[in-house]
């Protein structure tokens, strides 16, 4: 078991003829992901990295039965790519693109709800169900099959933590990078609920950062609804207020969204918060009685 994706997931790549799209399509294929098609308007009929190209998502879904899509198109076109996938009935859309305007994300939100589409991102590294399916730009080789779930607002920091987990013998079920933008698709709570219902996942690592109150909401959710142990880390404890720390969503505004508030919320929910990333594997092992 796993959450969101597995070996049966059929993936299409929107923007497959672009540099990043083509590169990561080949990487995903190499990992074993079932890449069934790519989209590039006017280039339907071509092949890229051995993958058939379609003009529209609708064409691709009709021809291949694709149920997941990953988006590599430039930021000005990413919102529209999400809409196209959603209206074509794709159930899971993963938007890797960085720099998507917030209004575009706000505009897609009611459409996703109406069409029952799950979105990961934008501005995210994607997700992986270890040894089954990798969607996005995650480095597959650092993951190892196991029982830890991981959700993160970050990219390389996630890899750092996964690497530590793997090296300490803690394999993973599904790891999800939900992205660093302020308005995104699935968020901590949505995924925590999925992990809670996934028999294979025994513990969850949550990597938050400054900005917003998603971590506080997650802490409440964990306290009230979760039976499985969660270990957290919050990046940005030393960040000054009012400055956007790279990620569009990583900003302390009007004094709210600080790391201190988030750590306090987790502590109150009985969730241990690692002081530095290298503490995480130990905390997980402690919770699992290992």
């Amino acid at each position: 078991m796993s959450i969101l994706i597995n070996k049966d997931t059929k993936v299409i790549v929107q923007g497959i003829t672009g540099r990043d799209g083509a590169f990561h399509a080949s990487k995903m294929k190499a990992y074993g992901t079932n890449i069934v098609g790519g989209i590039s308007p006017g280039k339907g009929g071509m092949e890229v990295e051995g993958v058939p190209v379609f003009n529209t998502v609708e064409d691709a879904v009709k021809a291949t039965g694709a149920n997941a899509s990953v988006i590599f198109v430039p930021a000005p076109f990413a919102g529209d790519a999400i809409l196209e996938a959603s209206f074509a009935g794709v159930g899971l859309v993963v938007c890797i693109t960085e720099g998507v305007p917030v209004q575009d994300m706000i505009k897609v939100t009611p459409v996703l709800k109406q069409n029952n589409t799950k979105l990961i991102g934008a501005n995210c590294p994607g997700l992986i169900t270890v040894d089954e399916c990798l969607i996005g730009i995650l480095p597959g080789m650092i993951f190892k099959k196991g029982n830890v779930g991981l959700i993160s607002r970050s990219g390389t920091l996630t890899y750092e933590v996964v690497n530590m987990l793997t090296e300490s013998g803690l394999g993973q079920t599904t790891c999800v990078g939900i992205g660093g933008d302020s308005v995104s698709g699935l968020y901590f709570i949505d995924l925590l609920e999925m992990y809670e219902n996934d028999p294979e996942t025994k513990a969850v690592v949550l990597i938050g950062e400054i900005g917003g109150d998603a971590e506080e909401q997650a802490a409440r959710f964990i306290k009230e609804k979760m039976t499985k142990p969660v270990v957290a880390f919050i990046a940005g404890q030393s960040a000054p207020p009012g400055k956007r720390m790279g990620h569009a969503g990583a900003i302390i505004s009007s004094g709210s969204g600080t790391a201190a508030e988030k750590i306090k919320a987790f502590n109150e929910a009985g969730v241990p918060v690692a002081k530095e990333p290298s503490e995480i594997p130990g905390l997980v092992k402690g919770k699992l009685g290992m």
Partner: protein
Amino acid sequence: MKIHEYQARILFKKYGIPVPEGFVCHSVDEVKQKVSDDDKLRVIKAQVHVGGRGKAGGVKLANTKAETIEKAEQILGMDIKGLTVDKILVADAVDIEKEFYVGLINDRNSKSVTLMVSAEGGVEIEEVAKVSPEKIIKMPIDPTMGLMDWQARKIALKLFSDPKEVRQAAAILVKLYQLYVDTDASLAEINPLVLTPDKRVLAIDGKMNFDDNALYRQPEILAMREVSDDEKKEIEANAKGLSYIKLDGNIGCMVNGAGLAMATMDMIKLYGGEPANFLDIGGSSNPEKVVEAMNILLSDKNVEAVMINIFGGITRCDDVARGLVVALDKIKTDIPIVIRLSGTNAKEGLEIIRETGLPTVETMSEAAKTAIELSKK
């Protein structure tokens, strides 16, 4: 991106949101020229990108032209929280019967533009939110329908009761929302929105921020950008695909990935150091980018040691190492540097770097400790 009050007023006017008469001045001479001779109550306001200018003495009233000039002289050149006032807004002061707060933000939770209003206007809304959150009325706006007139009326009816006032206020809400969406704003505030004794509803102070990710399609807004020296560096870095924020410490850091960059800063602090910056160089191993990043980093004269922290994912550490070697060879500096590589092919990468004699470490904490030590030499 932030704009000044006087710029927000320009946008308000364009959208038909009523504001008192006023103009911006960059010098006392300009004030002398522009202010009319008649006696009337005027307000002189410092235009700086920082809150609390009122408390800092950056807002003053004047009854006559002479007084206006005098107050302008006091405010121009003033230092407010480290920023020098180089422009002021001179506006007609209006009599106020009631003050209200009106704001629009991008709300992360409802994933929508959210309208907030309060009868507690004229004060910091964050204070109201903390002390009496029930006094703030919030309404998420469906992006497909926009702010409908009846919704605006419904909200306006919470603040006003006279039909004419309701109509004025509702129209202002609809126009502010339109302005917000049209310009890809991330914040729009009217604080205070006032009711005058003669029953006009006016925007007395305006604040607007914009989504940096959308500036590519907002040339008019981008043209309003006025940046400080620090911001200039950040914007330059951005143009090169780097994300840089200057801080006050002495340990420069260069990291791939925003989350990891924050964690690196935190680590330096955890071990008793002070980070000099946030610097995310993104995902590539391109030596040019590393050179650019190092140049920006070292242009900060406070930097006494540099910590490079790279996690190799799809881009393997050995490739990154080769890029770093090329880049560091080009940069002539006496500032000590410590390099930490982790992830895919980390060992091979570290080996390549060690050959050049640069100090390398394997963990983040070690890197932070080493950098702090080096900075003290």
